[in-house]
């Protein structure tokens, strides 16, 4: 039987960000569909809407012409939509079988036979009676897939399924997915990996900044064309004036390594680069390839070997962020609400987070509130933060105003180097332009920037040199004039 899934005019708006902007798509069984896009493109929001985790502001979902009301994940399951999330939802200490009973909606008796027959059919071999914690990532994923198959779904959605798999496990997964598709299950495959799309899928829908950019057949596409669609054409409207760069080295990173104890973090290996005064180095990459770790190593949240970072002729690898600030470095982290600022605190309290020595915010261990407030007022007016109440809790600032406050807080010390990570993520166009202009101004004052960003347009617009980070390794550093978004897209996907 043919399955037809239709998404009609779906819109989902978060404060300060349109996650899905009037998206309409149609899928038919017998094919494997790819949903392709960079991080923040809106593909996760879209599949969460399909699986009932998020309720859209507008728009409808039809399965075989029936309008579905998906108010909870259970609604999606009941309507034969199965979903395998990127991170597994399994109880580690329970056995595989116990995990499968939990939301199967079936009686224990018949279930074991049913699971056995599913496993025989698709050549899975998993011991049902061992605890889940003893399984490999690939096996855990199979358990999640079996959990969906028990309900005989019409639609199976896979969210970035290969991010935790080995090559071998990936090809096994692809074989299974092709088999499911032949049996009439509609497969929607979410990814940002271009090679996988080419290898596995029949049709591809590309999303960018919440909008559906294109729908096409794989046979009409190649890696370059998809990369181009994914990262967007390079518009270069406020391209900065290129001046002859100085050759005065400001920061020099040599043989920097970071090995994490956390399996969800990325290790950094053998990072080497340098930035001259007045220069902006852009670091491109798909989110999760080590950007966050690189930022933390540069800011001093993660301390490394003393000699691995040389800044203005001082070795500072073992200093913490506050100590690095004294050498005139400044940092603007990616996460505005959980790291760069504390939403529950007033604006002036957030300003005091950048406690550089000459600020006199704290004298002899006491808070100098007048000094902090005076300073906050200056930041607000110099950086166009749209409020005049510095006692306002910063959660009431829009994303753009909060980011202006953070950038202002960091720049008011006239640092020699600003390191920023996705500074315009989720902002509206006006705020983006303001931040971009500010960053260009910094360079014009012969100050330097390291810009880690997942937004390729932004990088091409602002950088003098660009490198790409992939799996914790930096590509060679390229002159921004010689780089195209196509080339970046390929490097970001792990190509050459």
């Amino acid at each position, binding site marked *: 039987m043919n399955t037809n899934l239709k998404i009609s005019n779906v819109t989902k708006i978060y404060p300060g960000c349109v996650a899905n902007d009037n998206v309409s798509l149609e899928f038919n069984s017998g094919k494997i569909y790819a949903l392709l896009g960079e991080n923040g493109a809106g593909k996760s929001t879209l599949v969460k809407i399909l699986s009932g985790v998020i309720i859209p502001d507008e728009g409808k979902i039809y399965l075989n012409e029936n309008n579905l009301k998906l*108010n909870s994940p259970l609604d999606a399951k009941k309507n034969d939509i199965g979903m395998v999330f990127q991170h597994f939802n399994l109880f580690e200490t329970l056995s595989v079988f116990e995990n499968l009973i939990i939301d199967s909606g079936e009686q224990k008796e018949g279930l074991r036979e049913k699971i056995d027959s599913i496993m025989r059919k698709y050549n899975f071999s998993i011991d049902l009676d061992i605890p889940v914690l003893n399984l490999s990532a690939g096996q855990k994923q199979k358990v999640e897939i079996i959990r969906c198959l028990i309900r005989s779904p019409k639609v199976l959605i896979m969210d970035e399924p290969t991010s935790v798999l080995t090559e071998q496990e990936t090809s096994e997964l692809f074989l299974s997915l092709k088999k499911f598709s032949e049996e009439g299950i509609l497969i929607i495959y979410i990814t940002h990996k271009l090679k996988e799309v080419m290898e596995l899928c029949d049709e591809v829908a590309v999303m960018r900044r919440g909008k559906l950019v294109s729908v096409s057949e794989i046979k009409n596409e190649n890696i370059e064309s998809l990369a181009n669609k994914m990262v967007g054409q390079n518009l270069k409207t406020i391209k900065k004036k290129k001046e002859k760069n100085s050759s005065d080295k400001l920061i020099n990173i040599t043989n920097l390594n970071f090995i994490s104890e956390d399996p969800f973090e990325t290790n950094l290996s053998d990072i080497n680069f340098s930035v001259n005064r007045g220069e902006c180095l852009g670091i491109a990459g798909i989110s999760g390839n080590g950007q966050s770790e690189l930022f933390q190593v540069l*800011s*001093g*949240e993660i301390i490394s070997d003393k000699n691995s970072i040389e800044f203005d002729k001082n070795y500072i690898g073992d200093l*913490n*962020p*506050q*100590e*690095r*600030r004294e050498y005139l470095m400044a*940092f603007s*982290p990616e*996460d505005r609400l*959980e*790291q*760069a*600022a*504390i939403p*529950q*605190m007033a604006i002036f*309290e957030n300003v*005091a*987070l*950048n*406690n550089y020595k000459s600020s006199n915010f*704290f004298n002899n*261990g*006491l*808070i100098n509130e007048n000094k902090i407030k005076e300073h906050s007022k200056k930041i607000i007016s110099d950086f166009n933060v749209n409020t005049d109440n510095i006692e306002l*809790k910063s*959660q009431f600032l829009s994303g753009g105003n909060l980011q202006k406050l953070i950038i202002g807080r960091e720049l008011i010390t006239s640092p020699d180097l600003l390191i920023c990570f996705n500074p315009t993520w989720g902002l509206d166009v006006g705020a983006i332009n303001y931040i971009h202009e500010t960053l260009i101004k910094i360079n014009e004052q012969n100050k330097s920037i390291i810009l880690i960003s997942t937004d390729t347009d932004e990088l091409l617009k602002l950088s003098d040199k660009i490198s790409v980070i992939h799996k914790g390794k930096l590509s060679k550093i390229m002159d921004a004039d010689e780089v195209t978004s196509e080339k970046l897209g390929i490097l970001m996907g792990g190509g050459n």
Partner: protein
Amino acid sequence: MIKIVKRDEPSRAIFFLTPVLAIFLTLVAGGLIFYILGFKPFEALKFFFIVPIADKYGFSELLLKATPLCLIAIGLSFCFKSNNWNIGAEGQLTFGAIVSGGVALLFYEQEGFYILPIVILAGAIGGMLYASIPAILKTYFNTNEILVSLMLVYVSKLILDYLVVGPWSNPEGFNFPETRQFSDSARLPLLFEGLRIHGGIFLALAAVVMSWFIFYKTYLGFQMKVSGFSLKTAKYAGYKGKKMIILVFLISGACAGLAGVGEITGPIGQLHREVSPDYGFTAIIVAFLGRLHPVGIIFASLVVAITYLGAETAQIFMQIPKYTGQVFQGMILFFLLASDYLLFFKFKFIGSKNDY
């Protein structure tokens, strides 16, 4: 139909109202329990909450019990505000009592104005030493401070047990598990003739003032606030996390140790087996009921102290076990946690026309 909606921001009014609501709900539930047990609810609650503090003596007893609770809770609020979960104040109290008791015994039958300050200081240092164990293990070996501080409670109680039964027991004490009486110079003075309320209350009030100053006026207080909201931000701002963890544990331990000093050098005047009726644990409830705010903690310690007294009155007049007091303490915490839900969510009444 009623719908539960998330608040845009936690309500400040509700923040201070929920403790009151929790106490009210505790009274209702307590009355219900008394009713089920076959007592008249209002009469029983009167025995529990009003009779014990109706006279001068009762009021003095209330302050006597509230003093250690307040002191410990103030110390704990340093830890809790900065995301450190010190559950072992009871152990720090006990160890503080041991050290100060040991010092007091050194001055057996000696007089001198300098003795009491030394004894008090010894208690604070004892509490700090004991609190430093979970703090150091947490900062340098990544252990969980909840487990370590909790387990150390039982260690300290066994040490105390050993000392009062063994080496420190009173030679003329007919083998009772207690030490000799401290000399008068080693004891906190009683404030009024015939009442047990003693000078420890000034230690508690001093701690309240000091904590208010540190929380709201110092860089340390600011760093604690930031760490309490987000450890990630604290790290990004470059605060020395390890130093702060150790510092808040030391402050907390010192306060618990001082509470221990008050227990043994006040009306009792000797070390014995049961230094504290679980003040160290109950103070956790006090700290949260007082919203980790110095003034809030004063009120909370008074409320919770009543449950101790009420339990004793109820045992005498109604023949119900004094452990009822713990039932009430448990209920207060339970209802407080439950009503905290209102901080983040509100009820919305909607017409039936809406879909959901």
